[in-house]
């Protein structure tokens, strides 16, 4: 390789490296590369995790607060507050795997009980979650809310924010959900969840209960908050 040719090839390589870096940068941004954790939308930015949430639940039957085959041998009940950071962590990191392994396969159905004890933002969001459940989209709404959870009680759960989350859920009529959120049915659903929490002695979120079909709910004592840990309990109950 003579000197001139060598320099030309180095310049060529430099150009290739620059183009490759630009392409990788674009790909990283397109895949949510600036997503460093749960956060509020703010500034009109797009929803985090929208595609994953819709993909997680796509095609799985839902009835109100329940997702999964009604004939599944095990029912898991999760108590959450939509502002609870650990609930959001579980929803983001573990729920997709749990749904994929246990709900899609018909081994378990999941029920979502939304509590609103953390503050006004919890109540506003919880009302819309309840209204979304009336459209059989409660799990998607809660999951997408968790993916975009903001600073606790900062007033971020505005109608605009909640509408944007609702509009991100496939098949959910956002206008109807926001209107229904103020109706007695949504209030009644939240009251039922609160009453169940009191009866079962729920003092924090997320708290999980499970039962074999037709059986009595028992609180799951999870060593770690993972899909594997919840799945092991489902396997135990399902194997009885």
């Amino acid at each position: 390789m003579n000197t001139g040719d060598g320099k030309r090839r180095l310049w060529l390589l430099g150009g290739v490296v620059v183009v490759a870096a630009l392409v990788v940068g674009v790909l990283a941004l397109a895949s949510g590369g600036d997503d460093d954790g749960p956060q509020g939308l703010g500034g009109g930015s797009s929803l985090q995790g929208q595609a994953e949430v819709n993909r997680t639940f796509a095609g799985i039957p839902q009835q109100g607060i329940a997702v999964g085959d009604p004939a599944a041998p095990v029912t898991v009940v999760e108590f959450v507050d939509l502002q609870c950071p650990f609930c959001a962590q579980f929803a983001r990191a573990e729920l997709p795997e749990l749904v994929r392994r246990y709900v899609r396969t018909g081994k378990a159905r999941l029920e979502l009980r939304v509590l609103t004890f953390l503050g006004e933002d919890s109540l506003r969001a919880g009302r819309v979650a309840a209204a979304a459940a009336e459209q059989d989209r409660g799990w998607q709404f809660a999951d997408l809310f968790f993916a975009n959870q903001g600073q606790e009680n900062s007033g971020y759960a505005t109608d605009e924010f909640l509408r944007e989350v609702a509009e991100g859920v496939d098949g959910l009529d956002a206008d109807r959900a926001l209107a229904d959120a103020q109706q007695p049915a949504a209030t009644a659903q939240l009251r039922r969840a609160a009453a169940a929490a009191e009866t079962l002695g729920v003092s924090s979120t997320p708290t999980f209960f499970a039962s074999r079909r037709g059986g009595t709910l028992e609180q799951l004592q999870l060593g770690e908050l993972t899909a594997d840990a919840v799945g092991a309990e489902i396997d135990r109950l399902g194997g009885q």
Partner: protein
Amino acid sequence: MTADRRLTLAIAALALVGLGIAGYLTYVHYSDIEPVCTTGGCAKVQGSQYAELAGVPVALIGLLGYVSILASLAIPVEAGRTATALVALIGFGYSAYLTYLELGVIDAICQWCVGSAVVMTAIAALAVLRLLRVP
């Protein structure tokens, strides 16, 4: 056998390995089954929001990348060597980004993804060497 020929064959062999890994992960994705996994995090990584790019499985994009690398090896002029290096460097950069996501965001390791990243890194190094050498 010339050095250029040896580099070409080495890249082709590595690309075939990568093609096998990406093909398997693409099959797993569309079959909705769990990948064979010894690291424990494959299903978590495959089920994460980063497993798709604009609705296209990342595994399928990787598969197309390896096919592109193999196709570019058949072009016996500098444009072919440049294309090989470009695709390989893009693959290397994106693999590095995905590995960062596994470690820092998803908090799970997928052995297949790591394997593909290692293969793509080796291909990128060889492709750069091949581009700089006179055939």
